[in-house]
């Protein structure tokens, strides 16, 4: 297979897909997390501020999911087809919550009645939390693998996606997004709401660190194959080490009230943790439970070399553009939330 900088196209594309999903987790992570906190605000004004904190950016954040889905479809069609059809119900629920969340944000402010706004607040907050949970369920299932047959088709029951490990990863995902979202809200709010979030962020950190520790121990005991890669190439241990350092840095920075840096490090932590996941799996993407010979890897699950090459060119042209206007939008709406007649 053709290579670029000594890395073959399939592996490169694996990195690209991973980078896009990391971008998605960092960006949509904070607005899903902020959504999960929404009902903790009791008065109308705080809720409006919280909603408008993500107002101009949530839609752009969701684009990363669309790009990620497209990148997976294009680069690894077999993986895309197998995972999506195997987890039909969770994906359908995911879409449902995604729609509910979008319309809650859009419709909430359109009527002044209290019941109307409360209804959409609840819909918005619950769908944000469930989206985080479902993302975690998918990740948990990918990490532990699934039963596959010789045609690389799913060979389990439709309820297979519910299992202790998937739930553990789901809780962990919700926790890290809530921590990430809390820090984002701190950066965007003032006064009482700001004080409130500085208290909540500590709860969120404890929630995350506890759930993360339990999940890590469980992984090491029950899925020892996930650490094979690190044992083979000990130098890779640097990645989880940096991830732990990055996570440990968050409470320190919050204690010192350096919230912008804390947000940077919670973003970095998400990226590092997903990098750990990527290393644990590589070169397999979907582990075949029981029959390792049916594993779907970056090679047997990839599109043709020609397509991978084309897609790399597309990514190389597109990424700087996306980065440029994402930066421009975030810069335009930098600082604390300012509401005007255009706000939600």
């Amino acid at each position: 297979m053709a290579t670029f900088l000594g890395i073959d196209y399939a592996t490169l594309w694996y990195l690209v897909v991973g980078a896009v999903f990391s971008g998605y987790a960092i960006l949509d992570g904070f607005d899903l997390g902020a959504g999960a906190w929404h009902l903790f605000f009791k008065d109308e004004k705080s809720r409006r501020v919280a909603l408008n904190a993500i107002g101009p950016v949530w839609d752009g954040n969701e684009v990363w999911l669309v790009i990620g889905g497209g990148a997976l479809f294009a680069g690894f069609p077999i993986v895309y087809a197998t995972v999506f059809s195997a987890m039909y119900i969770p994906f359908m629920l995911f879409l449902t919550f995604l729609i509910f969340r979008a319309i809650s944000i859009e419709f909430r402010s359109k009527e002044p009645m209290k019941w109307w706004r409360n209804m959409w607040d609840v819909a918005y907050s619950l769908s944000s939390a469930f989206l985080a949970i479902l993302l975690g369920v998918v990740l948990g299932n990918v990490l532990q693998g699934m039963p596959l047959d010789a045609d690389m088709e799913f060979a389990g029951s439709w309820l297979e996606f519910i299992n202790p490990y998937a739930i553990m990863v789901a809780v962990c995902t919700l926790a890290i997004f809530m921590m990430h979202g809390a820090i984002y809200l701190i950066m965007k709010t003032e006064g009482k709401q700001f004080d409130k979030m500085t208290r909540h962020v500590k709860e969120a950190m404890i929630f995350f660190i506890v759930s993360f520790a339990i999940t890590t121990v469980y992984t090491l005991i029950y899925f020892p194959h996930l650490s094979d890669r690190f044992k083979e190439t000990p130098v890779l241990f640097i990645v989880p080490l940096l991830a732990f350092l990055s996570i440990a840095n968050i409470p320190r920075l919050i204690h010192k009230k350096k919230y912008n840096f804390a947000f940077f490090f919670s973003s970095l932590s998400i990226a590092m943790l997903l990098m750990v996941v990527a290393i644990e799996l590589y070169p397999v993407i979907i582990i075949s439970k029981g029959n390792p010979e049916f594993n779907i890897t970056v090679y047997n699950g990839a599109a043709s070399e020609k397509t991978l090459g084309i897609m790399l060119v597309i990514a190389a042209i597109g990424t700087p553009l996306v980065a440029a206007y994402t930066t421009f939008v975030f810069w335009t709406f930098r600082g604390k939330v300012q509401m005007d007649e255009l706000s939600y």
Partner: protein
Amino acid sequence: MDVEILSRIQFALTVSFHYIYPPLSIGLGLIMVIFEASYLKTGNIEYERLARFWTKIFALTFGIGVATGIVMEFEFGTNWATYSRYVGDIFGSALAAEGIFAFALESGFLGILLFGWNRVSPRVHFIATLGVWFGSMFSAVWIVVANSWQQTPAGYHIVGEGLEARAEVTDFWAMVFNPSSVDRLSHVWIGSFLAGAFLIISVHAYYLLKNRHIEVSKRAFKIALVVALVASLSQLFTGHRSADGVAINQPAKLAAMEGHYDSLQAADMYIMGWVDHDNQEVTGIKIPNGLSFLIHQDFNEPVKGLNHFPKEDIPGQVNAVFQFYHIMVAIGMTLIGLTLLGAFLWWRGKLFDHKWYLQVMVAAVLLPQIANQAGWFAAEMGRQPWVVYGLLRTSDALSKVVTANQVIFSLVLFTAIYCLLFTLFVYLLNKKIKHGPDDSPMIDQRPKQKEMVEALNTHS
């Protein structure tokens, strides 16, 4: 019911509901760009009021468009896994290109378009509006390319056999510019302009009838009418080009569109009619041998009929294809008539004098929507029984591991959500329209606004 029909119903439901919105975004986007450009050029605050008002309605359509659009991207994998494996190389890359080149541009600038009025200068805001509009246009490019490849595959070769077979790209540009993509893209774009322009015409005709917002409404009505006139006339041309393409590349679809069975005969063109598939007869009003003339410029030249093809290779619902196609054409002609009439009244200086004309134009907002839907139904049902024309059958394209019960669950879910969503959409749209363009916007707060208006005043 089996998984195939359920999955087809679900895809048809989700995609046709989705398709109410993106054409509106494209069409409204074009006219918002015109409004803002006119404001920058003239400094006339009326244009800004229009742009701000339509931005609010745009926000509503765009939001629902995004939320319902991701559904399709996922459904390829969840419901059509075999299809996804088969075409991933090609369809996937078009979809990824759409995400990175179009959707990111669109959603990135959307925040500034919606919330940036008081944050950035009018010039920067105009650029944001332009970015959103270009994004929506590029979106259509990649989606239509992907769909056109399913109609007229090109630039690929088949690797593997049986279950392992899949299409791989050999020539990217041949894949992008496959035989039908340019004609169909222009047809889709113009259909979208019509959807947007007729919404604007409808709302402002309503204000004129109610004696509200008279000045801005006249201005907006005229701009949208010009767009609609040019678009409806060009649509005749792109439609004809598309039909020519179908005649060459998908003759079975063309035969179904006109209910033509006998290959040895010249083909008629129907104004309207009903196909009796069992007896292979069409009853209706027709132009004898009209289709032969349209395709071959010769009234006596035979056209390949449905009987020319093996039974298993022709669309299963010939009458439906026929009806959808004819609804689209009839509406297209009506739109030309309505806009020409408007142009005539305008020329006589009586555009806003006839109440009945304004009333008709209020209702006409539904026509481009129906035509867009009908056109797609004709195109997609006419492609059957293939999901990729001549290569992969729809019945072979399903997810093997998904059961009927699972699809029933999601179908019920989507039906319920979309009913709710549509009700809310109509309610809120109606409310925004009733409210009208705001008369007291905080217009002076825009950065560099004063300087711009002053500069314009000193120039003129």
